[in-house]
């Protein structure tokens, strides 16, 4: 089997009651039912290969959770076909559940009052994990995180970070081929976030688990995902490598140079003069390129589209004309690219 998850032209519609305003409206609602159809997911198709970590992104209300729910078998698609590990999830919800792991945001699925290890034991029996596999998994967990400290702590008493960690471990416990993580790092501090990212990465590598990850944190995406899928308003906007994403929106990089040693004059006039000087310097040399030049404090920033001209060429040219005291390079962050996509600015404006 080539694809572990296969979505073919999947749509999901909800019927929502059009509610009228005010008390009078509420009374009218009692008698007439005026439904409108909400297209939560619109003709989405994608194929996911075994062992991939796919970042599934989109603004709030884009239809991410709906898609995840359909893949986990909780929701039935209105149309289209979903195959997860060769099964239609909705029709075989219980069998499908045996072969997936799910972590849904801040909603712990563990037994609230039980210590973690007891929850694990119950899960071992529910998923009918063999003793050997179970011990192996625990050994792996122990090698990756300090899980022993958590074993005897009731979930109720755990911090959010510990709980998320425990939930992720519980989701991988029966070694499912696919794990869905819905905003696993939401609300966590920086060090816990990186701990969880490392854990997910390690489990993905060691167990060859396919991971579908929704998140709003681009740190998660940069750390974990090679491939991202972006949807908005139920429609798929992008499905490709994360590297490709940046070039898709233009291979923009910002070159920052400092041309004089001490600048004391930060006035608007001085900045404009610096911008103008730079423009006159480089524009004639690279007539095909479109630069965006700005200035802040003693830096001059040049936004360069590398598909038009290589940044290094510009840099070395400036160097032949002017002494450069200092320089910096800014990559366009995934975050700003994604932001652009969400805001629907199209593909060709620099960030």
């Amino acid at each position, binding site marked *: 089997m080539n694809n572990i998850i296969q979505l073919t032209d999947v749509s999901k519609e909800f019927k929502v009651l059009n509610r009228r305003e005010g008390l009078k409206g509420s009374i009218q609602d009692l008698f007439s039912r005026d439904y409108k159809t909400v297209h939560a997911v619109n003709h989405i198709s994608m194929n996911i290969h075994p062992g991939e970590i796919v970042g599934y992104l989109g603004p709030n209300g884009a239809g991410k959770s709906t898609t995840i729910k359909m893949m986990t078998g*909780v929701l039935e698609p209105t149309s289209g076909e979903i195959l997860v590990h060769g099964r239609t999830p909705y029709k075989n919800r219980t069998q499908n559940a045996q072969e997936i792991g799910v972590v849904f945001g801040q909603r712990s699925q563990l037994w609230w009052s*039980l210590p973690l290890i007891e929850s694990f034991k119950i899960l071992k029996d529910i998923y*009918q994990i063999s003793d050997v596999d179970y011990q192996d998994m625990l050994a792996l967990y122990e090698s990756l995180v300090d899980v022993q400290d958590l074993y005897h702590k009731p979930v109720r008493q755990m911090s959010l970070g510990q709980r998320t960690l425990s939930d992720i471990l519980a989701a991988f416990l029966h070694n499912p081929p696919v794990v869905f993580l819905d905003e696993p790092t939401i609300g966590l501090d920086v060090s816990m976030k990186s701990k969880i990212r490392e854990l997910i990465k390690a489990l993905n590598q060691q167990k060859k688990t396919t991971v579908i990850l929704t998140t709003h944190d681009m740190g998660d995406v940069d750390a974990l995902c090679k491939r991202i899928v972006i949807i908005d308003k139920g429609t798929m906007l992008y499905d490709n490598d994360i590297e490709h994403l940046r070039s898709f929106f233009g291979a923009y990089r910002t070159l920052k140079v400092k041309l004089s040693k001490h600048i004391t004059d930060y006035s608007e006039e001085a900045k404009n003069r610096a911008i103008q000087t730079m423009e006159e310097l480089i524009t004639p040399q690279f007539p095909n390129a479109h630069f965006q030049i700005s200035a802040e404090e003693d830096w001059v920033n040049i936004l360069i589209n590398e598909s038009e001209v290589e940044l290094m060429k510009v840099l070395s040219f400036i160097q032949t004309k002017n002494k450069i005291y200092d320089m910096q390079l800014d990559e366009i962050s995934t975050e700003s690219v994604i932001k652009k996509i969400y805001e629907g600015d199209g593909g060709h404006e620099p960030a």
Partner: protein
Amino acid sequence: MKTLSLPYYAHIYKMILIQDIKSKMSYRADFFISTIGMIFTNLSSLAAFYITFLNFPSVMGWSYHEMLFLYGFSLLALTPLQCLFDNNWSLRNFVYRGDFIKYCFRPINTYFYFISEVFDLKGLGQGAFGLVTLIYAWNKLQLPVTFLIIVQLLLALTTASLFMIAIMNFAAATCFYIINSGYVMVTANKFRDYAKYPITIFEPFFRFIFTFIIPIAFIAYYPSLLFLRTNNIPLLTWLSPLIGVVFFYLSYLFWMHGARNYTGTGS
């Protein structure tokens, strides 16, 4: 695919139950206070019962001890509901907060998984109370004790429990369909107070309702006829185990249907 058979479920249930009781026991104060509360609740309702009978020697041909029999019987029949199905009371909170979805991700039956999660120890106190009352009434009424009667009693108790559990299943599952289902739960719970009385004391209209619409008459009245009115047992008494199973199954279907529907819209 391994079959998810009865022994499998029994084993999982045992696992979860033992863990839950263990963790509950660790809150000793909570356990003792709620047990004491339960005893007082039952004592006070028994006192009200007693005072009523000081003034009326019998109700529609039912003597004090016969009524006490019904009372003890209904308490015992309620014990499984109280102990094992208490999570139904929290269902609406799970549904409204959107946390119910976690019950849909395990490879086991959703209803089973949800119900198995909570074991309410308080119910045991109530059960003990009911048992003592029943034995006392049994003695005073000088009812025979034979193997057959004990089997009948156990069967009757099981049937009665099924009805009670089914009523609460129906009531709890309304939260999948309507807002403010809390009132439905409370109302359904009130109905079980009527279960303690012989339905002959009600008007024919209510008798019909309590037999066929909200079948609380099956909780204590019909089964108890088996022991108290041995010469005149109506057909409904004999049919009650069957009706109980069917009614419970219907309530289960209603519950599961709701669970499926709910996940269709919630986020």
